């Protein structure tokens, strides 16, 4: 029966596509994107932490202390960001 044969062939082809899409889910370009992502993640948190410290210092008039504290909190947040996105990448693979 030609119709039956067509159905089985369709089934085989569909399975092939399914397998392909699950195997090559992560293309090489998205891996490169992930690598570029990590570098700025760290810097941004430090910058934001320092800016918050600067603003709060101006508010409360405690000139050097809050900016110092928030700088280090920013560094911690940056490391946390990097670890987190690295973990996300591991899950995907």
């Amino acid at each position, binding site marked *: 029966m030609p119709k039956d044969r067509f159905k089985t062939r369709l089934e085989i082809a569909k399975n092939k596509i399914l397998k392909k899409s699950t195997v090559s*889910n992560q293309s090489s*370009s*998205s891996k*490169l*994107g992930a690598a*570029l*992502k990590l*570098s*700025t*993640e760290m*810097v*941004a*948190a430090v*910058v*934001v*932490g320092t800016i*918050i410290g600067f603003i709060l210092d101006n508010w409360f008039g405690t000139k050097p202390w809050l900016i110092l504290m*928030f700088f280090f*909190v*920013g560094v*911690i*947040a*940056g490391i*946390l*960001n990097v670890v987190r996105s690295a973990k*996300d990448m591991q899950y995907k693979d």
Partner: protein
Amino acid sequence: MAINPMHQFNIYRIGPEIKLGEVDISFTNSSLFMVISSLAILILFNLGTKKNYLIPNKIQLLAELSYGFISKMISDTAGSKAKPYFAFIFSLFMFVLFCNMIGMIPYSFTVTSHIIVTFVLAAFIFIGVTIIGFIKHGVGYLKLFVPSGVPLVLMPLIVIIEIISYLSRPVSLSVRLFANMMAGHTMMKVFGGFVISLGIVGGWLPLSFSVALTGLEILVAFLQAYVFAILTCIYLNDALNLHH
């Protein structure tokens, strides 16, 4: 004349000066290239979707490919709940991609090499995602800043760290795109300047570098648009499916 490698980033006014109160809203070369990229996207998709051939021609294929690419990216990273936001992410990706790619044409202007442009895009995404999160989860969205299983003593410090990490999202998003575009274009200009100053004898080495860099820059232009869109999806995913 344009030996200075930063000269390409100059913004100048085209046409008359327009002022809205104190703010200068004149039409600049930056606005011109934004209009050009938007028009290019409109033309591409108008041509691509005008006649729906069963066997697509080249432009239709391009339009369908980009649609499928973004649609797959959204369902992979943010799940089916993010489908209503397809239009926003698609236009965002297309705009950034076209701005980057049109910037690769010699004598053109790269809109995304200015941090104010990328920061406005990122801030828009950040505010939008935060509003979506509060609409979907109410006050429960603040749970994002309070990870479960943390001892009470450490809680204030952890909450501050989480808030800084959340606020750093638009900064990292915008700085990444802007820095990549600006660094790449400056590098290309510097090598181009070497070709001129070394002349016909020694200019061949920087010229070959320039050619290689052009290829690299086209890759970076695509990749940065992709990263911008995929990070938007990830932030949207955080707002829609609240979990840690």
